[in-house]
C-alpha cells in the first residue's frame, strides 16, 4: 500500500466519523477507490452510482499496481454530507473494493486533470490563442497553418477557465481525462 502513497486508515467505515449535522448543503468530494483489477469492477462502481441515483462529476481509472493488480478509481461526486457518507459506505460493500479514501476529508489533496484543446482560427485570434496558452502554461502539441492542439494540466477549474477563453477564439474540440488526485504530504 505504501508504494501507492495512500495514507493509512481509510474512511470507508464511515459510521464513526460522520459529520455532526444532516445538512442540505451540496458538497463536492474527491474519492480514491482502490479496487482489484478484475473484469466488471468498473461496471460495479458505475452501476452503484446509477442504481442509487448518485452523481458522478468526473471519473478516472487505471491500474496503478501491476504486480498486485490494483486499480485506482478517482471519483469526483456531489451530494449532501449524508449522501457522501452513504456513497463511501456503499463503495466499501463492493467485494473487490479494497479501500475507499475521501480525499476531501482526509486532505488536503492535490487534484490534477489533463486536457487537450483544438483551436482553429486565423490572424489576431490565432495570436491571442497562443498568447493565452502561454499564460496558462499550455503546450502546443500539434499545429497546422490555421489550427493548434494545446495540452494543459491543472485543477479542473483552471481547465474550465482556459476553455472559456478559447471558446471565442475558435475552440473546435476538447478532450479531458478527468481528475486524478493524491493527498499532500507523506
Amino acid at each position: 500500500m505504501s508504494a501507492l502513497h495512500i495514507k493509512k486508515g481509510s474512511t470507508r467505515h464511515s459510521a464513526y466519523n460522520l459529520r455532526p449535522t444532516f445538512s442540505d448543503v451540496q458538497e463536492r468530494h474527491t474519492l480514491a477507490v482502490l479496487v482489484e483489477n478484475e473484469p466488471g469492477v468498473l461496471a460495479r462502481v458505475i452501476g452503484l452510482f446509477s442504481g442509487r441515483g448518485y452523481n458522478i462529476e468526473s471519473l478516472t481509472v487505471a491500474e496503478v499496481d501491476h504486480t498486485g493488480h490494483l486499480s485506482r478509481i478517482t471519483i469526483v461526486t456531489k451530494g449532501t454530507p449524508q449522501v457522501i457518507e452513504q456513497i463511501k459506505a456503499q463503495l466499501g460493500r463492493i467485494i473487490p473494493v479494497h479501500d475507499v479514501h475521501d480525499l476531501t476529508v482526509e486532505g488536503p489533496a492535490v487534484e490534477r486533470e489533463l486536457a487537450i484543446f483544438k483551436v482553429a482560427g486565423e490572424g489576431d485570434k490565432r495570436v491571442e490563442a497562443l498568447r493565452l496558452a502561454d499564460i496558462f502554461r499550455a503546450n502546443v502539441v500539434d499545429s497546422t497553418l490555421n489550427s493548434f492542439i494545446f495540452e494543459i494540466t491543472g485543477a479542473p477549474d483552471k481547465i474550465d477557465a482556459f476553455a472559456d477563453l478559447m471558446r471565442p477564439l475558435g475552440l473546435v474540440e476538447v478532450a479531458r481525462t478527468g481528475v486524478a488526485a493524491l493527498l499532500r504530504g507523506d
Partner: protein
Amino acid sequence: MTREMTGADMVIQTLKDQGVDTVFGYPGGAVLPIYDAIFQQNDIQHILVRHEQGAVHAAEGYARSTGKPGVVLVTSGPGATNAVTGLTDALLDSIPIIVLTGQVPTFMIGSDAFQEADTVGITRPCTKHNWLVKDTDELSGVLHEAFHVATSGRPGPVLVDIPKDVQFATGTYTIPKPSASHYQPPVKGDLESITELVAALEKAERPVFYTGGGVINSGPAASQLLRELVDATGIPITSTLMGLGAYPASGKHWLGMLGMHGLYEANMAMHGCDLMINIGARFDDRITGVLSSFSPNSTKAHIDIDPSSINKVIRVDIPIVGDVGHVLEDMLKIWKSRGRKTNAEALVSWTRQINEWRKVDCLKFADDKKVIKPQYALSRLEALTKKYDRYITTEVGQHQMWAAQFLNFEDPNRWMTSGGLGTMGYGFPASIGVQMAHPDALVVNVAGEASWLMNMQELGTAAQYKLPVKQFILNNERLGMVRQWQELLHGSRYSQSWSEALPDFVKLAEAFGAKGIICSDPADLDDAIMEMIEHDGPVVFDCLVTKHENCFPMIPSGKAHNEMLLGEADTEGAIQAGGAVLV
C-alpha cells in the same frame, strides 16, 4: 490438497467440501457436464424444481430454516434470467445462497449464441458478488470464495457463471483458506460505543429494543444473548417482520411486530421511547412511516454489520458496526461488570404505559358465524399447530401480515417470508426448501390464492419428492392488499384486483397426486385443519374467507407511528395526496 479433475467434478467436490447435502436446480444444455457429474454420485441430493425461480426460493427457504447457505444449479440464458427474482429477493433479505449457472462455451461468449445471456451483467445489481470463470484452474478457488462471500459479513446471494468448456476441461482443484480472502468484514463492535450504549441503557426511562433479521442471521447464539439481555434488563422488545422468533412471542417483554401493520403497543412504544436500540434492523420504510415524525424524542443506537445501513435513512446517535452476536456478548459483559443497572423506577411506569396501550387490543376483529374471517383462520391455525415442530412460510399480501400478527414464533429460523422485495410466489417453493431441510417437521405455507398461483407449478416438485408441505390458502378471490389500497386511496375502484377464473384447488391438487381440502364454514375449520396436518403428503387447503376484509392496524402512507388506523371507522380520508404517492 490439490488434485486434477474436470470443472464439472470440481463443482461437485466443492459442494461436498462445503458440506452441502441438497441442491435445487433445473438442467439445460449449458450445464449438462455438471448434471452428468451429479448423476455419478450419491452424496448430494438434487431437487428438480419446475421453474428456476422456484429453485432459488426453495434454496432461500432451506437457508433461512437451517442457517446454512442454499445452493442452486441452473442453465444459461433463460435459466439464469428466471433466477433473477430469487436473487433480488435474497439480496434484500440478506439470505446466503450460491447460484451456479451454466454459460455458453468461452469461445462463443459475445456471439449471441443459443441460450446466451450476459448473466454476470444482468445479475450484478442483484447479487452480493458474482463471477464468470473462464479458466478451469480458477474454478475451485472461485467456488470456495463464493461460499465465503455469501456467508460472511452481511449474508447475501452470489452467482458463479461457468461456461460449458470450463466444465469439460481438466484443471487443478484446490481449497483456499477463507482467511486468504481479502474480504474479511469485522465482526467485533467498538467497545467504547458499546459502553456508551450501556450507559444510555442504564439511565433510560422509556427504552425499547427494535430487532430485525440481523439477529436471526447472526445465528442461534445471538437470539440466546438477546433473550438474556431483554429478560435481565426488563426492557420491552419489538421486532420487524424479518426478525420474528429471535425473542419468543410468549416472552414477558414481547410487544409484537412493529411497522405498517404492526401492533399498536409496538408502534406507540417506538414513537414514545427515549432510547431506541436497533439490533440488526435497517429502518426500512415499512417500519418508520413518515421520517420527519419518526420517534421524535429518542436517542437512537444502531447495531449492524453493514456500515452502509447506519445513517442511511435515520440519523443515529450511537452507531455500532459489528455482528449482532459479538456485540450483544460484549454489551452483556459490560452491563454486568457495571453492576447490572437499569432505571427501575422509570421502567415500572413505562411498563404501565405499555400495558395501557396493550388494552386497546388492536388485533380484535368482528367474528362471523357464517363466513371464515382470515384472522379467525389464522388464529385457529396457530392454536392447532403450535404444539408441532412447526415452520411457516408465506406468500406476500394481507395474509402475510395477518400471519405475522396471529402466529406466534418461539424460536428463530421458524418463519420464512419475503420481507424486503415482497415477492408473490415466494412461499410455496420456500416451503419445499424448508421441508427438504426438515423432513419430519410440519411445514405450512400461509398463502393468498393469487400469490400461490404464481408458482403453483412447484406442486409437481412437492408431489415428486413426497414433501408433505401444507398450502394453507386464504382464498378471498381478490388481490387483497391491492384491493385494500384501492379502497383507501382510489375511491374503491378495484382495478384488476380480483381473481377471475380461479381453478378448483381440490381438483388441481388431485391432478398432481396431492390432497385437496376445501373449507368455507367456520364450524368445519378445526376438523379441516386437523385433516390437513394429519395427511402424510402435500396438501392444498382452499380456505374460503371474507372477500373484503381490511388488514389492521395500519399506518397509512405518509403518517407517523402514533397515527395508526385501528379499524374501518378510522379510514375515512386517512390518506392525503402526499401519502398517496408512497408505496
